[in-house]
């Protein structure tokens, strides 16, 4: 005998059992489209394809309320979409933010039906504490059975929070209640309207007890409604009602008694809601009933989520009055049904007296009934974690209802749940409490998104204080360190100011010394030139390199082409001209032809200047030279000239063909020159010439006439044999002049050079010694003072 596993608790039950013997859940569904549908698909079987046109044959208009035992037909709920309220349609479009993606994100309105109607999942029945988890699991299991209009809500609502999907066959009259219930659920993100019969049957005990206390008989349509949700139209036969609804009906005329068990089953946050002392007995059980509230003036304690829920229902129903399928949401709570005592918090369900639109929806009118100060309660009560994220949205939804503006005077004092109180704007609470809440001063912050949280909001008396813009102190808040740094900075500035006072005297002293040095040097240089006397003897010690240069030059054949490179700056022209003049004079006396080239823009002019100033004799006797001009590009220009001098310097500085001149006849490449003499004051230029011409120069010797400052860098090339001769500075030119040329420029400079250098040496020596002594004495004095 095969066992049937309970879809709720999963425990095996005999096949003939209609309901689970463990949890009471219905094992055989009451609904089924066709007999074929009722046959379950077993493991290994292929699902049969059924024509869906069968469902179209059933017209919703002909559908009556479903009775027990009848075969439910699938309902074309798509037609009902036209009658959906706009706000509900907007939910389909995903306007509702995904705030209910998880049970923790569920809104308070959402969780009310969920709590009062726990999902009949196995987990929920077995573990009543984990009712939220069971809710999610139950919704996940039957997700595919959700009707179309509910499916539209699914996008906006949390899938995990949807109740168990309804069966296809639902009575026609169930649509209105589905809609208003869906409105509730839609706002909460969890439409509970399509609760199947399993949901009803598997209602937890506390809900069953609640139903037994109901006074008004429930209409048949409420069979499909979640427990506790009223239904206005009593058109359905009573025999179709489930047992628990029958019991609810039977109790509807009986005075409602608080059920202690119901209170025990409530969640903590709900059961912990303070109740007005006068109504404690009646309001202990938050029973959902169709009974109207006894009186508007009765002090009640209604959870604001419930009043808000009702206001939403009313607002939605006003907008849907054209649709006949819908009944006003206020219907379920007729005020004339009974005057029997009902829970106070429930009595306010019928009251439509929220505060004005500009005011917060949840305002406590009577502070005295609250065990704590309202503002303090609003800030001190802790918000459930699963609701904390929803506060802004909930608070926004609770405002602006027209009905709320209508009767603000009907507001009753209520002990709000903590999370509802936390939703209240700060100003409302503060304004209500006024100066009566000084205890919280300093414990909260004044504004911001954290308003409503304990220890965050301020309780400063008076709204003006709350709204007063913060006054920022103009005075700097400085610490001790900053003050110390500032003092140091001030001291430094002062010291700097004092130093400025001494600067002019020091500058004057420096300037005087500079004048003295300048005068001495200029006088030493000018004296030999002005006097015309020679008091400096010639050099007796001849540099070693000059002999190599003269040897190379003496080996030149007559009429040899020589390439002269003028790579020095005009600033050093005096030294270079004096150094090169005797060498060039020697070369020209040997009958050499000159080709002039330069890698500096001023080089061609310097070359002309040099020849005119140092070789006037040769120029007058028919000196043959060709000025090839300026080689641009630095190393690239030198390389280009070394590679192909004819292409690199086609024209002279005058624009004539260079290589057709007499001076350069027979020269087509670098190695055709008899020698390359480089005049430079820059060691890098000399190095580049040596390096770039090495591969193309062949056996042609390279001679260097350099400034004294370039000697250390060029000398290694001379020592290594990469250059064949070198004349260094005025001393080199003077020695060369002594040997191979007539007295010339070097001799003229020689006395000035010697005397000026001597003056500089004396001044440096004397000044340095005196300066060292002064510095030493200053140090000694400083040491003694220290």
């Amino acid at each position, binding site marked *: 005998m095969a066992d049937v596993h309970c879809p709720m608790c999963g425990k095996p039950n005999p096949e003939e059992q209609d309901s689970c013997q463990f949890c009471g859940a219905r094992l055989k569904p009451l609904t089924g489209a066709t007999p074929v549908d009722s046959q379950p698909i077993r493991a290994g079987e292929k699902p049969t394809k059924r024509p869906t046109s069968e469902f179209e044959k059933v017209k919703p208009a002909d559908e009556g309320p479903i009775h027990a035992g009848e075969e439910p037909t699938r309902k074309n709920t798509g037609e009902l979409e036209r009658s959906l309220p706009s706000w509900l349609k907007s939910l389909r479009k995903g306007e509702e933010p995904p705030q209910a993606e998880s049970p923790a994100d569920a809104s308070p309105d959402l969780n009310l039906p969920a709590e009062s109607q726990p999902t009949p999942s196995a987990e929920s029945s077995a573990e009543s504490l984990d009712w939220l988890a069971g809710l999610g699991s139950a919704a996940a299991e039957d997700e595919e059975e959700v009707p179309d209009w509910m499916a539209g809500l699914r996008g906006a609502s949390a899938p995990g929070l949807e109740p168990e999907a309804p069966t296809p066959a639902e009575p026609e009259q169930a649509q209105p209640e589905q809609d208003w219930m869906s409105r509730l659920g839609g706002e909460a993100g969890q439409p509970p309207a399509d609760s199947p019969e399993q949901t009803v049957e598997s209602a937890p005990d506390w809900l069953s007890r609640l139903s037994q206390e109901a006074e008004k008989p429930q209409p048949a349509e409420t069979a499909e409604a979640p427990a506790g949700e009223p239904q206005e139209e009593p058109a359905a036969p009573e025999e179709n009602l489930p047992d628990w609804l029958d019991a609810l009906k039977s109790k509807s005329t009986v005075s409602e008694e608080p059920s202690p068990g119901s209170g025990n089953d409530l969640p903590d946050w709900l059961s912990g809601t303070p109740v007005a002392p006068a109504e404690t007995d009646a309001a202990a059980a938050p029973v959902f009933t169709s009974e109207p509230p006894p009186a508007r003036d009765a002090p009640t304690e209604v959870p604001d989520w419930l009043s808000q829920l009702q206001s939403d229902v009313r607002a939605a129903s006003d907008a849907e009055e054209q649709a006949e399928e819908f009944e006003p949401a206020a219907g379920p709570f007729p005020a004339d049904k009974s005057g029997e005592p009902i829970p106070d918090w429930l009595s306010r369900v019928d009251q439509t007296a929220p505060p004005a639109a500009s005011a917060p929806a949840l305002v406590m009118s009577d502070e005295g009934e609250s065990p704590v100060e309202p503002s303090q309660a609003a800030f001190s009560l802790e918000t459930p974690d699963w609701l904390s994220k929803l506060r802004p949205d909930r608070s926004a939804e609770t405002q602006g209802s027209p009905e709320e503006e209508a009767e603000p005077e009907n507001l009753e004092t209520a002990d709000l749940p903590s999370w509802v109180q936390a939703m209240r704007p700060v100003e409302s609470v503060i304004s209500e409490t006024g100066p009566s809440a000084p205890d919280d001063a300093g414990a909260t912050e004044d504004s911001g998104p954290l308003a409503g949280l304990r220890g965050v909001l301020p309780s400063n008396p008076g709204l003006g204080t709350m709204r007063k813009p913060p006054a920022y102190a103009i005075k700097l808040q400085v610490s001790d360190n900053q003050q110390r740094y500032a003092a140091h900075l001030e001291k430094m500035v002062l010291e700097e100011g004092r130093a400025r006072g001494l600067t002019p005297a020091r500058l004057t002293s420096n300037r005087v010394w500079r004048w003295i040095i300048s005068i001495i040097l200029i006088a030493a240089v000018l004296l030999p030139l002005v006097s015309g006397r020679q008091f*400096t003897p010639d050099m007796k010690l001849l540099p070693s390199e000059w002999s190599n240069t003269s040897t190379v030059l003496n080996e030149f054949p007559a009429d040899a082409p020589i390439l002269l490179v003028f790579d020095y700056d*005009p600033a050093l*022209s005096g030294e270079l001209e004096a150094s090169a003049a005797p060498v060039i004079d020697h070369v020209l006396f040997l009958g050499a032809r000159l080709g002039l080239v330069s890698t500096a823009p001023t080089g061609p002019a310097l070359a002309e200047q040099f020849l005119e100033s140092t070789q006037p004799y040769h120029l007058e006797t028919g000196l043959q030279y060709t000025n090839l001009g300026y080689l641009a590009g630095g190393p690239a220009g030198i390389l*280009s000239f070394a590679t192909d001098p004819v*292409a690199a310097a086609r024209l002279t500085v005058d624009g004539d063909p260079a290589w057709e001149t007499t001076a350069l006849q027979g020269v087509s490449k670098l190695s055709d020159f008899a020698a390359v003499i480089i005049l430079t004051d820059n060691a890098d230029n000399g*190095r580049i010439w040596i390096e770039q011409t090495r591969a193309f120069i062949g056996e042609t010797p390279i001679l260097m006439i350099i400034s004294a400052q370039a000697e250390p*860098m060029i000398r290694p090339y001379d020592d290594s044999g990469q250059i064949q001769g070198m004349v260094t500075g005025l001393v080199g030119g003077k020695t060369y002049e002594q040997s191979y040329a007539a007295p010339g420029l070097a001799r003229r400079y020689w006395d000035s050079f010697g*005397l000026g250098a001597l003056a500089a040496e004396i001044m*440096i020596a004397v*000044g340095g010694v005196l300066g060292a002594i002064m510095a030493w004495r200053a140090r000694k004095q400083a040491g003694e003072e220290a």
Partner: protein
Amino acid sequence: MKLKGLFSTAVAVLCGLVVLAGYFVRLDILVNASNTLITWAILLTAFAILLGIINLLIVHVGKITRKQKGGFYSIILIFAMLATFAIGLLAPHFPPASPAFDFAFRAVQLPVEASLMALLAVTLTYASIRLPRRRLSVFSVIFIITGLLVLLGTAPLPFLGDTPLVSDTLRPTIAQVLAASGARGILIGVALGALATGLRVLFGADRPYGGK
């Protein structure tokens, strides 16, 4: 930007390899290609000079238009520059302009540069005198003594000529041994650095021309 950098890097590496190959492999095609690239580089250098001149002109024109301090000197600079450039352009084609072009060099550039060098001589002398007083240390003393010895060994003494022991021994030792040995080290370092830099440019590791 990446494509641009890749392109410029490829061009640089290719040009470098061609020039290098033309330097070592004397094939006509490589030599011609190398010479062509070098010629292009030379021409671009000349363009760079012109660009620098234009930039200088723009800067000083801006100073004049903004009426900044020293605008008068900028006017002098611009006038001298434009006049010299104009005369220089005319000189090869208009012979009377050639002496004016030479004048610009011989009467302005040459004496001013030489005078600046004279200022440098005075300044160095003054700095050498002040050095021991401002910073008395072993290195300062060594610097002063070395400078004095080189001067003594280089320049002749009036009425004496060469300085005994200094001109024939100390000065050559300092200039040809100590300074030259240091210069060798510097030159070797320069050569190695140039080699490494060239290789890095050829490999694209260094992009002095820009690009990432």
